[in-house]
C-alpha cells in the first residue's frame, strides 16, 4: 500500500489549515488516514484541523461507534470568537487488509468533497449512508457520510479538501474545478501513467489546482492518495560480507531478488562488480559538496558511496525533506527510490573496514548498523514502509 499526500498553502499563508495524518498498526496491517480542513486559513485553521485530525485518528482506532466519535470531535472543538462557530471538516479512511489479501475500507466523511475510488483509471461509485447527527447546539445541519467498500490491487482512494474542487473559481470556472472535473483529470493522469505513485499523483492534482487558481491558491489545497499496488521492492546492499566465502551467498541473494537494487559503499560496489562481472563507472554528473558521486553498474539501479550517503539519507527521511528541494546527488536518487517502494530489504555486510587513515569513520561497522537502523525506523514511522534487515 502506497500512501502519500501533497499540499499547497493559501497564498500569503505560511501554515496550512489542512492537515493530513496517517498511521499504521504494525501487526494488523491496519492503516488509518485522516484529512481535515479547519475553518479559515492560517494558524487558527491549522489548530482546528490538527485537533480534529488527531482526535479522529485516535477515535477511529477505538471500537467506539462512529456517530459518537464524530459528536465527541465536534463538541470538543473550540468555538471561533468572531463567527461563534467551531468548525472543521474531516475524512477518515480506516483501511484493513486481511491475511488473504482482501482490503476493506471504512470511510467516514464530514463536509469534505467526497473521496474518490478508482479501479485503474475508472472511477467507481461509492455508496454512502447519510447520518444526521442532530447534535445539540449545532449551528447547521450536520450530516456524516459513511461507506464501506473493498479495494483490490490497482485501486486508489483519492481524498482532497475543497481547495481542490473550488480551484479556478472566478478564474475561468464559475463554480471552480468541481468534483466532476477533478475525477476526469485523475482518470486521465492514471490512464497515461497507470503505475503513478501516490506521491506523484497527489502532487499532480495539487499542481493542477494551483495552476487553475492562477498560481496563487485561493485556499489551502491538499490531496492524499492511497494506492493498493503490488508491493514494489527494493534491496539495499551495504558493507562487505563478514568473510569472503560469504560473497557468493550475497550474489545469490541479489540475483534472486525481484525489484530495484541499490549498492552503497565503495568496497561493497567493488565486490558486487567482481561477483557480477560488470564494471563500476563513476558518474560525475551526480554529486554535491556533501555527497560523493554515484556510480553506474549494469543491473543495479543505483550505486553510491557508503557512510556519508547513508547518513544523509537517514537525515532526509527523518526530517521528511521534500525531494524537490534536494540537490541532484546520490542522496536524492536514493531517497526517491526508497519512497517509491513499499518494501525495503537491507543486507548489511559485517566485515570491518580496514580504513586506518580515515578520520570520518572511526568505528565504521557500528556506525553502519546505527545508520541503517535509523533509515529503517524513519521509513516505517514516517512513510509506513515495510523493512527487513539481514546481516551477512
Amino acid at each position, binding site marked *: 500500500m502506497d500512501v502519500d499526500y501533497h499540499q499547497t498553502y493559501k497564498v500569503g499563508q505560511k501554515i496550512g489549515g489542512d492537515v493530513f495524518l496517517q498511521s499504521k498498526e504494525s501487526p494488523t496491517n491496519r492503516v488509518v488516514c485522516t484529512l481535515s480542513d479547519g475553518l479559515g486559513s492560517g494558524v487558527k485553521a491549522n489548530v482546528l484541523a490538527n485537533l480534529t485530525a488527531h482526535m479522529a485518528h485516535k477515535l477511529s482506532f477505538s471500537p467506539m461507534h462512529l456517530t459518537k466519535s464524530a459528536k465527541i470531535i465536534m463538541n470538543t472543538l473550540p468555538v471561533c470568537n468572531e463567527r461563534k462557530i467551531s468548525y472543521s471538516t474531516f475524512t477518515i479512511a480506516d483501511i484493513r487488509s486481511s491475511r488473504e489479501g482482501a482490503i476493506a475500507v471504512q470511510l467516514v466523511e464530514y463536509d469534505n468533497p467526497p473521496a474518490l475510488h478508482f479501479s485503474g483509471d475508472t472511477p467507481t461509485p461509492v455508496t454512502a449512508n447519510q447520518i444526521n447527527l442532530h447534535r445539540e447546539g449545532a449551528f447547521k445541519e450536520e450530516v456524516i457520510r459513511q461507506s464501506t467498500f473493498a479495494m483490490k490491487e490497482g485501486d486508489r482512494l483519492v481524498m482532497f479538501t475543497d481547495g481542490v474542487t473550488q480551484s479556478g473559481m472566478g478564474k475561468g470556472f464559475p463554480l471552480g474545478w468541481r468534483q466532476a472535473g477533478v475525477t476526469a483529470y485523475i482518470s486521465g493522469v492514471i490512464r497515461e501513467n497507470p503505475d503513478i505513485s501516490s506521491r506523484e499523483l497527489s502532487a499532480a492534482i495539487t499542481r493542477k489546482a494551483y495552476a487553475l487558481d492562477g498560481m496563487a491558491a485561493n485556499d489551502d489545497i491538499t490531496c492524499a492518495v492511497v494506492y493498493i499496488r503490488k508491493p514494489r521492492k527494493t534491496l539495499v546492499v551495504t558493507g562487505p560480507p563478514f568473510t569472503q566465502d560469504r560473497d557468493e551467498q550475497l550474489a545469490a541473494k541479489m540475483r534472486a531478488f525481484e525489484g530495484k537494487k541499490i549498492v552503497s559503499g565503495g568496497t561493497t560496489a*567493488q565486490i558486487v562488480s567482481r561477483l557480477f562481472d560488470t564494471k*563500476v563507472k*563513476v558518474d560525475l554528473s551526480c554529486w554535491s559538496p556533501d555527497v560523493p*558521486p554515484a*556510480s553506474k553498474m549494469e543491473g543495479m539501479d543505483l550505486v553510491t558511496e557508503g557512510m*556519508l550517503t547513508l547518513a544523509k539519507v537517514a537525515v532526509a527521511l527523518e526530517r521528511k525533506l521534500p525531494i524537490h528541494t534536494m540537490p541532484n546527488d546520490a542522496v536524492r536518487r536514493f531517497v526517491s527510490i526508497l519512497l517509491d517502494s513499499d518494501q525495503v530489504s537491507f543486507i548489511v555486510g559485517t566485515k570491518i573496514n580496514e580504513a586506518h*587513515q*580515515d578520520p570520518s*569513520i572511526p568505528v565504521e561497522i557500528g556506525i553502519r548498523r546505527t545508520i541503517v537502523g535509523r533509515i529503517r525506523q524513519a521509513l516505517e514511522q514516517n512513510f509506513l514502509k515495510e523493512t527487513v534487515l539481514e546481516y551477512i
Partner: protein
Amino acid sequence: MEQKRISVKICVGTACFVQGGADLLLYEDFLDPELLGLCDIEGTSCLGGCKTDDPKWKAPLVEIAGVLYPNVTKQRLAELLREAVDA
C-alpha cells in the same frame, strides 16, 4: 605530432572525498580549458591509499597516466597535469 591524451582518475572514495577530493571534482572551474581539452578525467572508487598505514599516501589521491599522486590540491592538480602534458 598528435598530442596523446592523458588519463586522469580522481579518487571519490569516502576518505579522499572528505579530505579535499570534493574540491578536485570542480576541475572544470579551475583548470585551464586548454589543459582540460587534453585530459580524460574521470572519478574512480578508492585507490587504496587510505587502506595503508604509510603517511605518504595522504588523501586525496589522483592517478595521472597510471601514476598515483597523494595529497593533491587544486593547484597541485593543475601543475601535475601541465607537467604531464609537457612531457
